[in-house]
């Protein structure tokens, strides 16, 4: 590492002074969000403790009233218990009502306190909770009175640290841009983390074009989502806790993208999983939310298993785990490695990790459930950043994947299948967040198809534009849900605030949300010149080029079928998936923003956009969804090159140093690829697909009159029902994996205590026959034990002397 860095410095020196790159306070980028976590964490502890009732100390006889073990000192309990019960029940139920994500009006709380004096107090509180349960994503409204500092400070700290971190990242980006291309790599050394023998892992950050790009996305989009969160979450009793988790997430995400080695990346990798778990289950009072968090964590761990194995294979065969050394050694030994079983296994195990984190087949099942978390979390973690970590991992390991063409084809194929599979499910969902969740799975499939086909830049490009428009869509849906919730709440209407059948015509009430979401829909559908058009076109274009034999994978084979055939298939699959994307996004926009409003006559008046914090991020992200694609306009592609603003293929050039190793592998092992002749038809096809999908949706659905969710009949049969029920994959996993593992566990448990332990007891009983006074022992007399023990010890000691 040091050598490389010195080499980089040397190269910079050769290019002249001022061309070197010295990172500017790189640890501050990750340190600031961590600081935010610590501060907000302390605030959340303070806030939680202030909400608790006063109770007698632990060890007080009061707590013995239920204790049957020692049976003393229970006299005081009957006197104090009822009074305490009242206080406790009222205090805690208030707390719970908050943490349910439902609100406790002063009136409700008073009622709770009143009810708590009766034995059925608790149930009464629950009944009140129930009627206020509009949707999964409901949140509280302002209780009267000024907020305590524990609820005001996080609004400053949480976005503050993120924005500061973003500024530092930008400063580093500028410094890197000013450096020569060869010098755009720096390792910020930390400390020796795991030094054991030849395994030397350092805690260090790597700043290079890829990691700084990811850092900008994470801190930039992250800052906007933190700002949005203020407006969205500030009334929630768990607000400081929420902000603490969010800051912690960003810290781990930055470790993930900035880590200079696979193990350091793994720290972030598992850390973001933890935060995802905590945030999905943020409103833990409802079991479904906590279940969803658990599911995400466990499924992610299946992927992490693959990551671990890949690291072991890599270390014992390459002898290092930091990116620089790994790439250096792989390139040095590439002749013996190319296409071999070892490198293929490493690539596939890493891909297992990526598939878990990025929700690819067959491990995608946790992501739709993850929508149980607050919507800004869905935007940040489950759309823009964490779920793209798998794509980042593959791009970061481009040398490994280029050395393993078969594994690359697997990645591309899985990505393409995920893209079409999830898109088809998205066609029939009613929950606005579920549509976006399956859309995210599908778009991640596009990214994997790209990086699998060796189009790393296209994959990262789509990752970036997707972060813009999908974050915008999620935040927009959050604004919709926020408004819907407020409206439904005004009349205590129990309808679901996330069901599109209860919306309709919202463009009149939420104009900014409508416009920004509309732009993002055009972007994701692939309508030029919006961001998604360029990135998605580049991916599908890569498939067509590969099918024509212009890819290094064209000559590779998977299951005996040559790569060019596979890439043709992938091109077709992705085109169909792109059409579906345009269709379901059009459907979502139509049902949400067009047609007649179905929220209810009285409720309608309460539909409005409120806080600036909810609007500003939408506008910024909407702008980015418009212009984001222009950073990588392809030079030689017909029509596309018309959008040239002098920025042609900027991303290609920016990422070139990172991908030089991969290019070298292709040059050494595949040889020069024929220069592609860019045709116009793929572009025309892409535009037709994007516009056509939206138009089809408009033609089919805009005239359709929907009934509200409670009146709409369920899908009765056929493909609609199958799609609505997500191909029954969850049910299948439940029967094929969850239940058998649970059954086996119970069987083992019975075996353990029923058979193994029984055998042991049998020996014990045999010992009885040999005169061990078992009956005596059970008299409970300490003296007896002591006597037996001392005799035993004496026998043992005596046996020594006798020997």
């Amino acid at each position: 590492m040091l050598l490389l860095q010195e080499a980089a410095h040397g190269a910079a020196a050769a290019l002249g002074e001022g061309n070197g790159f010295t990172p500017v306070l790189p640890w501050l980028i990750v340190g600031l969000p961590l600081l935010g976590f610590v501060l907000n964490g302390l605030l959340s502890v303070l806030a939680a403790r202030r909400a608790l009732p006063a109770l007698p100390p632990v060890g007080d006889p009061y707590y013995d009233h239920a204790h049957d073990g020692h049976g003393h000192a229970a006299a005081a309990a009957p006197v104090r218990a009822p009074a305490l019960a009242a206080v406790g029940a009222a205090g805690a139920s208030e707390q719970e009502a908050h943490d349910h994500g439902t609100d406790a009006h002063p009136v409700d709380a008073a009622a709770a306190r009143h009810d708590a004096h009766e034995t059925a107090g608790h149930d009464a509180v629950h009944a009140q909770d129930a009627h206020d349960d509009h949707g999964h994503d409901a949140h509280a409204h302002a209780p009267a009175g000024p907020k305590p500092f524990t609820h005001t400070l996080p609004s400053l700290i949480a976005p503050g640290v993120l924005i500061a971190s973003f500024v530092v990242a930008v400063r580093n980006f500028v410094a890197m841009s000013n450096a020569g291309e060869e010098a755009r790599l720096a390792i910020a050394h930390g400390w020796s983390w795991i030094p054991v023998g030849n395994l030397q892992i350092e805690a260090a950050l790597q700043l290079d074009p890829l990691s700084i790009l990811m850092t900008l996305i994470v801190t930039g989009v992250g800052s906007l989502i933190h700002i949005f969160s203020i407006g969205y979450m500030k009334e929630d009793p768990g607000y400081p806790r929420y902000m603490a988790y969010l800051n912690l997430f960003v810290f781990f995400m930055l470790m993930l993208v900035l880590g200079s080695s696979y193990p350091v990346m793994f720290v972030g990798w598992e850390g973001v999983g933890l935060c995802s778990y905590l945030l999905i289950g943020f409103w833990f009072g409802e079991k479904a939310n906590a279940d969803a968090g658990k599911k995400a964590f466990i499924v992610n761990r299946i992927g992490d298993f693959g990551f671990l194995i890949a690291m072991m294979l890599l270390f014992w065969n390459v002898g290092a785990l930091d990116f620089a050394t790994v790439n250096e050694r792989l390139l040095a030994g590439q002749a013996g490695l190319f296409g071999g079983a070892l490198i293929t296994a490493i690539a596939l195990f890493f891909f297992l990790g990526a598939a878990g984190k990025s929700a690819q087949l067959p491990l995608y099942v946790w992501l739709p459930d993850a929508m149980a978390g607050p919507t800004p979390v869905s935007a940040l973690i489950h759309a823009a950043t964490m779920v793209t970590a798998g794509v980042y991992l593959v791009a970061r390991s481009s040398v490994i994947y280029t050395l393993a063409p078969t594994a690359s084809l697997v990645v591309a194929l899985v990505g393409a299948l995920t893209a079409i599979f999830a898109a088809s499910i998205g066609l029939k969902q009613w929950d606005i967040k579920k549509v976006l969740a399956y859309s995210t799975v599908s778009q991640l499939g596009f990214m994997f198809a790209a990086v699998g086909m060796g189009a790393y830049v296209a994959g990262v490009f789509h990752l970036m534009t997707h972060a813009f428009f999908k974050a915008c869509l999620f935040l927009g849906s959050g604004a919709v849900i926020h408004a819907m919730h407020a409206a439904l709440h005004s009349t205590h209407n129990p309808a679901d605030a996330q069901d599109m059948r209860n919306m309709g015509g919202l463009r009149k009430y939420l104009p900014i949300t409508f416009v920004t979401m509309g732009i993002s829909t055009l972007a994701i559908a692939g309508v030029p010149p919006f961001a998604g058009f360029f990135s998605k076109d580049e991916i599908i274009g890569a498939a067509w080029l590969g099918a024509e034999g212009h890819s290094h994978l064209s000559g590779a084979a998977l299951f005996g079928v040559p790569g060019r055939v596979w890439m043709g298939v992938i091109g077709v699959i992705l085109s169909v998936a792109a059409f579906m994307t345009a269709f379901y996004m059009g459907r979502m926009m139509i049902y949400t923003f067009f047609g007649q409003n179905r929220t209810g006559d009285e409720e309608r008046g309460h539909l409005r956009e409120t806080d600036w914090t909810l609007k500003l991020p939408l506008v910024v992200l909407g702008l980015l969804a418009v212009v984001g694609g222009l950073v990588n306009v392809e030079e030689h592609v017909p029509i596309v090159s018309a959008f040239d603003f002098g920025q042609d293929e900027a991303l290609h050039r920016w990422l070139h140093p990172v991908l030089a190793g991969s290019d070298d592998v292709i040059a050494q092992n595949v040889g020069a690829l024929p220069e592609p002749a860019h045709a116009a038809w793929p572009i025309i096809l892409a535009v037709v697909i994007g516009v056509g999908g939206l138009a089809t949706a408009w033609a089919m659905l805009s005239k359709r009159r929907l009934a509200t969710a409670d009146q709409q009949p369920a899908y009765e049969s056929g493909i609609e029902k199958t799609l609505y029920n997500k191909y029954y994959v969850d049910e299948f996993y439940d029967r094929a994996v969850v239940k058998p593992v649970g059954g086996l566990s119970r069987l083992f448990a019975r075996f353990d205590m029923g058979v193994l332990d029984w055998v042991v007891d049998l020996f014990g009983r045999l010992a009885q026959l040999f005169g061990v006074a078992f009956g005596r022992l059970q008299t409970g007399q300490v003296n007896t034990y002591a006597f037996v023990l001392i005799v035993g010890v004496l026998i043992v000691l005596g046996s020594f002397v006798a020997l």
Partner: protein
Amino acid sequence: MQFYQSHWILTFLIFFPLVGALAAYLAGEGNARGVALGVGVIEFLVSLPLFWTFQPGVRCDVFRTGPAFQNCVSADWIGEWGIRYQLGLDGISLFMVLLTTLLLPLMVLGSWTYIRDRRRGFYASLLALTAGVVGVFVALDMFLFYVFWEVMLIPMYFMIGIWGGKERVYAAVKFFLFTTVGSLLMLVAILWLFWHWTAATGHPSFSYFDFISMPLTARQQYFLFLAFALAFAIKVPVFPFHTWLPHAHVQAPTAGSVVLAGVLLKMGTYGFIRFALALFPYAARGFPHHLHPPRIVTAALVLGVIGIIYTAMVAAVQSNAKKLVAYTSVAHLGFVILGIFAFNLQGMQGALLVMIGHGLSTPMLFFLLGMLYERRHSYEIDDFGGLSASIPVFSAMLVFAGMASVGLPTTVGFVSEFLVLMGTFQQHPWFALIAATGVIFAAYYMLPIVQKVVFNALKRTENRMIPDLNGRELAILVPLVALILWMGLYPRPVLDRMAPAAQDALTAVAADRLAPDAPAPTRGGAGQPGGVALGGGR
């Protein structure tokens, strides 16, 4: 500082708690816990400078061969039988001793209000137990080791049998019989070694250093190894000898569970590293060609992996929280077995670090469950739920302890299990592959209990009326949290200190010291390195 270079520090750490036990007993019911706390704090503070005075790899003058120890002493005890008061400290025992002394004051604090009856007996037992445990980790005379090993059982037996739950007597007797049966076989093996040595040299000795220089035939090594291994396997415990552990944990009071999981189980794995491997390296490496399988390495790896997967699954369906955590101990120690029998530096250091990390995270879980028990008098998982709303600080701590147990990066659990898997993978990739699924199973057993206790709806009225952690309880948990994070983020000071000792253990197990397979040697003595030749024997 002379104190810390000599054996007196070790002698102090063994005998001071014994004196303290007497003092606590005499102090009476009211003052026992205060005295015990004072003794515990002093014991810990006195032991703490060892961390800095310990010089990795430095060898004392007393023992010139074998693994490098410091703070050594070798004095006659029962001269006639060659029994010596022989102590020494190396990078392995250093951390086991520090872990023991750290947990002592924490256990006293954890029992502060938990133990209401016969306090003086309880604290006397606890302190006496500590003395025995420290002795086990530093004794280098096999007889002395055995005495500590057995002596320590008695106070533990009392702690479970007197201050335990409803079925405390059953659990205590089971614990005692189980461990005694295993120990007796080890005692026979030790005596055999003693006779063998005495017959060969004419000088009676129980010295560890004498025994590890004694050549033995492959057959002798094999059976002696099994005798030692049984004692240690029961203590660890290794599947299928683990069924005493859930009973003992469920019935034991908090401090009993803590000391059991924190240090007592480690005596088993410590025994493997220090004695079973070093004394019988040829057998341990598993090449008794003429004895045919089961090869010991294979058996150990298989049992280790079964421990990781099987007990994790059993843990996942337990309804009693303490029982669940007890089973997870078996799973964690499966990693230790795996790491030890990888016979490389990563595996060995990983195993040692798992021993430390598990000695922090599992006691933390038991402390937390004990705190919950004091409030609700239940260990049944279904009695809880939604505690995040009523006792948020406790809940945060439980989530942290759960994540530490699962081995999330930034905790010591990750670093240690990563090292074990790394080490195992080099030697036995398939075993490592299976063992690595342990990361999934760890989430499979730990997340449901966390969810059922601290998340979900707060339904039961009893769970609303409990106070959050107080200062005393935080004083127990915060040091554990700090240590778990420190060793997860910067384990180097620990790894560097234990590296020479781990290397010594590997060197010891790499030796053959094989005697010819002919009739028992009439005159043995100096090693006969030519033993390889008999590989082709019957």
